[in-house]
């Protein structure tokens, strides 16, 4: 790694001041699993690493029954996976936090880093969008809140302006009969980059038979993570059936505009977008009902 300086910052104000002063020659450091690797490989060149982990808000993980869940931008995945409030109120988050890298990567890697690295294939993003996460950003002009689906501009590019950084995420309190899920396809069992990822959430009627709200987002099928509001909209007011799930999956498939690269082709990715959307929806429905009628691949028992 070429020479660089390091400064730990202890408050949001201090971070903003340092980042604003150094512009794009400085970068915030959370878990470092992307940043340090990129610096070592020479993919990125900066003069100053700004360690934001000493800022209390960045490492805070807390639940408020009115405001919902706060996930500090630098909270590592392993803490989220082991958090009792997350397991209780947002169990589907573990679909992402337990599959990003191996266990030693999860010891450091944060959702804030995953989001700011802005890979179209980021495994936390479709899941967080399904959970209606908003990004809390601080900068020289003050703070602002951005829905996660509006955070991305292109591969590696976000709406963050010079001097701005991500403080953390707010996830609303899940309504009654809420369930969510994230699935990805990779050609092996673990430790790979998603060929396609799909996040889904539903709110069901109290009897579990009708969809009242749904959100669907895809990864690795566009230059940015892709929120597909029309796929969720198509489920609203519909009975929970294979037909309504298939309709939403078809919309997701049509919305996908992937490329062909070393990981997959356009045709394969579009196909996967539909299949994974349907499976993620079935798991989300299952979780919303509090039943266990689908297997770990999201297939309804007795269905292919």
């Amino acid at each position, binding site marked *: 790694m070429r020479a660089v300086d390091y400064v730990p910052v202890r408050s949001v104000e201090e971070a903003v001041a340092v980042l604003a002063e150094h512009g794009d020659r400085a970068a915030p450091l959370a878990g470092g699993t992307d940043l*340090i690797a990129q610096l070592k490989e020479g993919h990125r060149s900066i003069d100053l690493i700004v*360690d934001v982990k000493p800022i209390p808000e960045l490492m805070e993980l807390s639940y408020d029954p009115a405001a919902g869940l706060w996930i500090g931008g630098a909270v590592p995945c392993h803490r989220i996976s082991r958090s009792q409030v997350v397991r209780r109120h947002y169990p589907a988050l573990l679909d992402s936090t337990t599959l990003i*890298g191996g266990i030693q990567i999860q010891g450091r890697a944060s959702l804030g880093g995953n989001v700011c690295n802005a890979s179209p294939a980021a495994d936390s993003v479709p899941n967080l969008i399904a959970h209606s996460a908003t990004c809390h950003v601080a900068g020289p002009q003050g703070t602002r809140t951005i829905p996660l689906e509006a955070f991305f501009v292109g591969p590696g590019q976000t709406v963050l302006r010079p001097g701005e950084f991500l403080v953390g995420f707010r996830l609303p309190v899940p309504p009654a009969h809420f369930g969510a899920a994230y699935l990805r396809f990779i050609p092996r069992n673990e430790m790979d980059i998603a060929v396609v990822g799909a996040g889904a959430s539903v709110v069901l009627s109290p009897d579990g038979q009708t969809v009242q709200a749904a959100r669907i987002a895809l990864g690795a099928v566009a230059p940015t993570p892709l929120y597909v509001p029309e796929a969720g909209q198509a489920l609203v007011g519909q009975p929970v059936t294979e037909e309504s799930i298939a309709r939403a999956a078809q919309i997701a498939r049509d919305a996908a505009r992937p490329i062909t690269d070393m990981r997959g082709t356009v045709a394969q990715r579009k196909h996967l977008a539909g299949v994974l959307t349907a499976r993620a929806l079935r798991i989300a429905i299952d979780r919303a009902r509090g039943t266990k009628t689908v297997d770990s691949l999201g297939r309804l028992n007795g269905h292919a």
Partner: protein
Amino acid sequence: MPERKKRMITTTINGEEITFLCEPRQTLLEVLRDELGLTGSKEGCGNGNCGACNVLLDGVLVNACLVLAPEVEGRELVTIEGIAPGGELTLLQQKFLEHAALQCGICTPGFIVAAKALLDENPSPTEHDVRLWLAGNLCRCTGYDKIVRAVLDTAAALQAAQTTPTEVA
């Protein structure tokens, strides 16, 4: 631009308070190996893929090649050198020998540190748990199976020892 000053870092490594001088661009792994002579942690890939550099940072398993040395100020580290106090092999290490879970041995420190972290958190893992937990550790020699057996056998032996009241470890 602030000048790239060397930084004085104080941290606890294997129970001992240690102060070292480092450049901000140095990783924890570089400092352990090149400055402190703790060469048990290995560099396989240097970018977080192989687990040969695994250490425990405040009890959490991390890749030392992806931690900057200045980040460990005031923290507590355990490296492979701190796993066997007094030079006696731990049960886990003995089981690695028994099961021939190493050949060239370069991956072994990383596997031992990772497996210790697993057994500390989950004393009775399934085979799936072990394979999943060790998915971030690469071994070019053994084909993994012997490593998985060694860890499962360690867990079984520790469990058996726990239910035998005379053999309190």
